[in-house]
């Protein structure tokens, strides 16, 4: 039996811990603004009408929605770094000793890790939605719900990698590489139609593609979203379940205190 109260208690702690990234949070916000106000704006002017129509009429909108998804992704993976910080101070052992099951712990951390990034990116998301101009509120709501699940999945992914890699330097480097690949091999920044076919193959199974297309669909940029919304939602559910399962499996079977590092 999973106690939702316990899950929430764990999540709440991770949300509170997020505030200690003050500097990083400010820098990420500046990064976001520069991506939208500089890069997005300038690149938009470079594209001819045929390109603009391939991205649903306006590359700037397409890009702004994609940037939100990259922000969501890169903020959510912070939870993996937290795990190293905690391992340094032995807090992992403490968390393994409290009356919370490993399932509740992993679920709580995934939810906390996802929710806190959702709260952080929220205002930027609203800003982008305002720029795009939302047409269908119900559609948007459905998309946001799925994006919630997407962030929980990303958090589970980061937790899984963190507890299986066990060296913070390697984790850091790996996360940098994954970040570069997972963003570029998805539809977050450019449409699939312009990719060489091997890239298309990867992009069409990349969770970031599903998340980006779903967000665009929710924001009313339907023609820019290639993946059908139901398929995108389903894929996100699979993604979330898979990494939650891996995370729980590692916590129950493999993770120990003491010689963890």
């Amino acid at each position, binding site marked *: 039996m999973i106690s939702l109260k*316990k899950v929430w*208690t*764990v999540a709440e*702690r991770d949300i*509170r*811990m997020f505030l*200690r990234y003050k500097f990083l949070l400010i820098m990420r916000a500046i990064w976001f603004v520069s991506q939208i106000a500089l890069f997005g704006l300038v690149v938009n002017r470079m594209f001819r009408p045929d390109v603009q129509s391939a991205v649903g009429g306006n590359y700037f909108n397409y890009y702004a929605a994609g940037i939100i998804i990259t922000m969501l992704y890169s903020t959510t993976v912070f939870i993996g770094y937290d795990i190293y*910080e*905690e391992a340094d*101070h*032995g*807090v992992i*052992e*403490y968390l*393994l*000793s*409290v*009356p*919370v*099951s*490993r399932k509740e712990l992993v679920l709580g951390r995934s939810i906390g890790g996802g929710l806190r990034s959702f709260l952080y990116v929220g205002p930027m998301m609203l800003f982008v939605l305002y720029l795009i101009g939302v047409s269908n509120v119900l559609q948007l709501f459905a998309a946001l719900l799925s994006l919630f699940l997407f962030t929980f999945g990303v958090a589970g992914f980061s937790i899984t990698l963190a507890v299986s890699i066990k060296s913070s330097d390697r984790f850091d480097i790996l996360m940098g590489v994954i970040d570069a690949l997972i963003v570029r091999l998805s539809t977050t920044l450019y449409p699939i139609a312009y990719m060489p076919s091997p890239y298309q193959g990867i992009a069409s199974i990349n969770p970031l593609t599903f998340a980006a297309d779903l967000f665009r669909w929710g924001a009313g940029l339907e023609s820019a979203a290639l993946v059908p919304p139901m398929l995108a939602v389903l894929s996100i559910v699979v993604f979330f379940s898979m990494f939650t399962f891996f995370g729980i499996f590692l916590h129950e079977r493999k993770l*120990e*205190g*003491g*010689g963890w590092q």
Partner: protein
Amino acid sequence: MPPIIRMVNLTKKFGEFTAVDHLNLEVEEGEILGLLGPNGAGKTTTLLMLTTVIKPTEGTAFVGPYDVGQEPDKARTLIGMAFQEPKLLWVDSPWDILNWHAKVCGLSAEERKKKVRWVLEQVELWNDRLKSVHAFSGGMRKRVEIAKILIQRPKIAIVDEPTAQIDIVGKHRIWNMLRELRDEGSTILLATNELYEADVLSDRVAIMHKGKLLVCDEPKKLKDSIPGGDVVEIALEKDITTAALAKLKEIPRVVNVLTIKQNQLKIYLNQAEEVLPKITEFFMKERLQVKSIRMSEPSLDDVFAHYTGLTIEEAQRE
């Protein structure tokens, strides 16, 4: 009543090295059991297996009715642990740490409001409650760690060297708080390498060395049980020779002689009043001038020495 903790061949290996070696030990409900041993004896490793933080390599332990390998989640509901090294994120404050701990242990918002304040006052950290533990001394961090179990009041409290780095007044306060916890019905398993702490606080003491249990009983019984109920400590002007040492051991009623240093001996004997004159006579004959003689009751150190041939301090240095 069945024991509340039962370790059955509990073993932990790190690679080839055996940190805990087929430990069989039972903890009775409502007692303070002191796990005494030098650094590296395997105390912390044992406690971490009981709290399910690490997994046994062999054997198992039962916490209440729950096997730590089979039902770790249930075992943890009975246990609270104060770690040897305080497990605190530096950005956290005592208030946040304890409030969250109380919450995760199931205390309601109302209870927490009262109890977090109460416990912070108990460990004298109320004024520092909102500061980050980053700036805290070792002793202050340790008090935050102890406060976790004081607020939780678990059925089984596991405390690992609770008063290390804490001044003597603070030690007495913590001992009293642990006694109160026991008197309320909690069982306490205490790991320590301090003889005095083990002696005054424990209802029973289990002595560990190199991952193995040597003996477990009430402190008084342990001290009474070692042959040579009287202890005489003798300091000499110069070092004793091996030959003289052998002769000394031959004297009737001398049970054992421990060389703390080559000119400092600890003699275990029976009926000291009669034997002591013979011993002084012996040293005169050997032309070994005696600097001082001190008689004492056996301590837990002597019990440890009886089993290992070393004082705890010596074992610690090994």
